[in-house]
Every structure is written in C-alpha cells, then in structure tokens.
C-alpha cells in the first residue's frame, strides 16, 4: 500500500517541538491583538468559490476546489480578508464601526514551490473595517511591527508603499488603462527592464518617462518622500505621500518608526489595494514575512461600501526567520517526570495533582517502575526532574 504514510503535496506535519514553537508565537499574537481591542473570529475552512473570487476571478486556478451535494463549487479559503469582508457585510453589518477583528488559521493556495511555505500554511492577522484615515493605517503598522517583535525577531524591516502614488503618476500622463495595468504589473514584479521597455514605447516627454521608470527605485528613509514629491506634480500622488508622512508620524509615537522604511515600488496585488501597502522582511530570509494594506473597494464587491485595512503574518516564515536569527521559540517546559514503586499509584496521582496545581508540567508514569527505569524514562523524554515515590 504505497502512499498511505505520505501526506498530500503541499502539506506538512508539525512535530511536538515545531508545534510548540508555532503555538507559542500564535498565542503571543492572539494576546497582542486582544490588547489592541481586536476580537477573534473563526470562519469556515471552505466557502463558495464565487465568494472567494468576488474581487479577482483570476485567483480561481490557485484555489483548492470541490463540490457540495448540489454540485456547487466550494473552495478552501486562500486568505482571511475575503471571508471577513463577507462576515462584515452580512452577519456583522449592524455592529458599531470601526470593526476590529483578528484571526489565526491555515489558508490554502495551490502553487508549485512557494518558498518558505507549503500549499497549506498558517496566518495570523487583523482587519480594521470602517475607517479610512491614516490613524487606522498607523495602528495596523504598529500592530504588525509589535507582532514581529513579540514573535522574538530582533532584526526586521517594514517597507511602506502607497499604490496611489504610481496611480497618480500614470493618470498625470493620461496613460490608457491597458498600459497602466502593464506598468503596474512590471512594478509589482520589479521587472525594471520590462518597465523601461514599456515606458520607452510610449512617446512621453523625457521627464515624465524618467519619473515612471524611477518608481521601483524609490526606496529609503523618510527623506525618500521628498525625492518622490519632486517627481509627481499631481494631487493624487502628493496626497499619497502626505498619507505616508502622516502614518510615519503616528508610527513614531507608537515607537515603531525605527523599523520602517519607504518603498514606493511596493504595490502588492494592485487589483485589491487602494492606499498604504506594506511588506515585512528579515535578513537571510528571501521572502516577505508579512504583508497588508488598505483595500477600500473590496467590501463594495459584497454590496456595502466600507473602507478597510489590515495585514497577515506568515507563521511558518516567521518561525524560519527566528531560527535564522538564533531565536528559540520552543516553549515546552518539561518540568517533572513522576514515577513510583509498585503499590503507590494513589499517592502518585495525588502528588501529580498537587504539583500541577502549583503550575508544574508533570508526566505521570502509567506503570510502576524501578528507580533506574524511571530515571531512564525521564532522560529519554527530556524532563528536567524526576520525582520517585518509593
């Protein structure tokens, strides 16, 4: 029977030590989100395909799909923003705004070779619905930065962008929609060679062409916003830069400004994001650990216009980054292995209860043992201390 011991492509087991590290981070994140007033929600693992693809039909090939009894197509959720938007528009529509929700779950994306994760991977994150100001975005950035900090990471960077900067620059040059989406796609992939070819083919004046080509290279500290300002003399781009400056000022008060850099070439999935966007990186890990941003149009696709912002942290990727930075998240405290000579079962149960009440982690032997055998068991199982009842 080949195959019965394998797991399907794109899935993995977490062994006790890995599961403990994962749980430790998830618990700290859950506590942090709760402290900021975000309430946890749980949604079904599967949804109707139409629900998940409401904003972007092109997602469909990357979803895991199946049929229900009426032959309707179901899909495993690929992220949590869409299910939470559905929830906000339907069952939570009468809740007072802003709505602050958090989640921790696995999500599923069918793709070959996703660096640092499988097809099923874990995300913790938040969504803030109902407020469109910079304060809301700053709270999201502060939460993301604190989330990475309490995960144990010392060295990481959050890069902030604003999709309206590039949009404004393209509108200023009256570029037709198909050219705009080609340019955005090149910026998103950071295909600077491709971007230059597209721009060179558009008979633009020299200054306009060079401004467009510079977008993916606008990376740096707060001073980069002034460099960007000089490139885009239109209201939309200027407002985008004002928005970033405002978010940054608030992030300073939150005490996370030292982790922030700006990068106007980050536009992430542009079908979806409408304002501030960000990604988080750590040295020696070649992919982003977290990402998010403002998505003011998405809830409209469900029938209720409502501004929204949020992010997701990739748990496996954070675990990898912690490991590369030499940070252990193994929270298992194996305190006491409790064993006993024949006839002491009742005393042992009582002793174990007593120790557990005192907060110790105790494994109680299920058979009587000699003291030597008990010591061997303690070592094999990795407990710090042996208590043996003679």
């Amino acid at each position, binding site marked *: 029977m080949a195959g019965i011991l394998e797991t399907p492509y794109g899935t993995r087991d977490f062994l006790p030590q890995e599961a403990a590290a994962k749980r430790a981070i998830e618990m700290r994140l859950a506590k942090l989100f709760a402290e900021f007033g975000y309430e946890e929600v749980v949604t079904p693992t599967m949804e109707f395909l139409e629900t998940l693809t409401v904003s972007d039909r092109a997602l469909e090939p990357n979803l895991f799909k199946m049929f229900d009894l009426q032959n309707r197509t179901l899909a495993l959720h690929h992220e949590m923003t869409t299910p939470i938007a559905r929830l906000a528009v339907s069952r939570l529509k009468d809740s007072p705004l802003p709505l602050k929700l958090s989640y921790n779950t696995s999500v599923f994306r069918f793709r070959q070779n996703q660096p640092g994760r499988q097809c099923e991977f874990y995300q913790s994150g938040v969504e803030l619905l109902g407020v469109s100001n910079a304060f809301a975005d700053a709270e999201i950035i502060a939460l993301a930065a604190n989330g990475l900090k309490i995960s144990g990471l010392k060295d990481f*960077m959050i*890069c902030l962008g604003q999709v309206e900067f590039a949009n404004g620059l393209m509108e200023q040059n009256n570029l037709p929609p198909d050219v705009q989406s080609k340019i955005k796609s090149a910026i998103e992939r950071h295909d600077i060679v491709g971007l230059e070819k597209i721009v060179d083919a558009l008979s633009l004046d020299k200054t306009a062409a060079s401004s467009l080509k510079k977008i993916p290279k606008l990376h740096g500290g707060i001073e980069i916003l002034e460099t960007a300002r000089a490139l885009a003399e239109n209201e939309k781009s200027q407002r985008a830069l004002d928005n970033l400056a405002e978010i940054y000022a608030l992030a300073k008060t939150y005490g996370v400004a030292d982790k922030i850099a700006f990068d106007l070439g980050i536009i992430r999935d542009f079908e979806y994001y409408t304002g501030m966007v960000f990604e988080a*990186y*750590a040295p*020696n*890990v070649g992919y982003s650990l977290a990402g998010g941003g403002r998505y003011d149009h998405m809830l409209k696709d469900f029938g209720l216009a409502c501004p929204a912002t949020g992010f997701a942290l990739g748990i496996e990727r954070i675990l990898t980054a912690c490991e590369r930075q030499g940070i252990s998240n193994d929270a298992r405290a194996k305190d006491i292995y409790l064993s006993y000579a024949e006839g002491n079962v009742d005393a042992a149960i009582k002793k174990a209860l007593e120790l557990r009440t005192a907060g110790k982690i105790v494994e109680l032997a299920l058979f009587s043992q000699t003291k030597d055998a008990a010591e061997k068991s303690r070592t094999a199982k990795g407990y710090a201390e042996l208590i043996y009842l003679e």
Partner: protein
Amino acid sequence: MNDFITIALPKGKLFGLSTELFAKVGWTAEGLHEKSRKLVITNDAAKLKFIITKTADVPTYVEYGAADIGIIGKDVILESGKDVYELLDLGFGKCHLMMAVPKDKKRARLEDYAHTRVATKFPRIAEKFFAERGMQMEYIKLNGSIELGPIIGLSESIVDIVETGTTLRENNLEEFVHICDATARLIANRVSYRLKFDRINSLVSELEKFL
C-alpha cells in the same frame, strides 16, 4: 556575514562576460574563474561572495535569497518561473527563442502544427506560447541537442534558443516562428533588494555607465 553581498554567476558562456563587466566596477575576487574548485569565492575587503552555479539554478538561488543578486539570461528567467527582480538588461548573451521545423517538411501555417510533438529544453515557455494561440501540443523535454528531435523522428518541431542559426542550418531546420528575444539580466532577491538597497542600487548605477 550579513553585510556581504552574494552573487550567483552561471557556468558557461555568460560567465566570462559577467566577471569582466563586474571587474570594471571593482566587483571581483581573487581566484574567480570558471574552473575554480572552490564553490564560494570570497573577497573579504570588498565584502563580496561569488558562487558559480549551473545556469538553470541561478534564479533558484536568488529567489530563496541564498544569493542576493545574480546574472542570468532572460530565457532562463522565463523558463524558471521564479519570482526574482530584474534590475538591468546587460545587453550581452543576445539570443532569441524560436520554433524551428525541418525545411523539407515545412507546413503552411503555425496552426497546422496543432497537436504535434515539440522537442524543447524550454517546456514552460513553449507551452505558454502555444496556449496563448489556443494550441495544444505534446511537449517532449530534452536536455540538449534539441535539433536531433525532428531528424530522428521524435518530434515535428523544436522550440529552442538560437544565436547565429548555424546549428539549425547544419541540421536542415528552418526558423518558423520567432517567440522572444533574450539577453543577460542582472537579477536580485526581493528582500536583499530592500535590505541591501544602497549597495545594490549603486552597483546598478555603476554598471549602467559601461553598457
């Protein structure tokens, strides 16, 4: 070690041209040559590490961030499907991807080749090209001497890269459709590009002067 920049260079024809170009801007290391037995060649003073890999592996090293930057042909990037940043067109290593067929059995139109067998080292690019034209093909992945396919009766056509066209002519093949042009590119990992932006961006500006 984090302040080092790791550069992945491909073995083969791009290697010499790449090291020559890098040397012009002072990015080099003692003992950096293709026949080096060392797998990692370090220049401690300049904080550079070079790794020499098989051509098809360069995008993989860069996507995972094992190398911060690399030099590789556009054809290899397209075929790999890897998510890497493309910073600069280096201009050398010029070639193009095309579909070629035996001269004496040439069919009239591209559509006449639907459902036939195509031998290629680039199945991903080939599949994308034909799929965009609504054509289903039978792809036969080969790792070298692609021209042999039609000669020996393994396939009706090939999709391959061509520089001068000499090999095609020698094997009685004729270019049938041009697919895309390719040159060597400077690529970067998305995280390295941000965390080591100053060094990578000034490298790009320096290199631009020599192109």
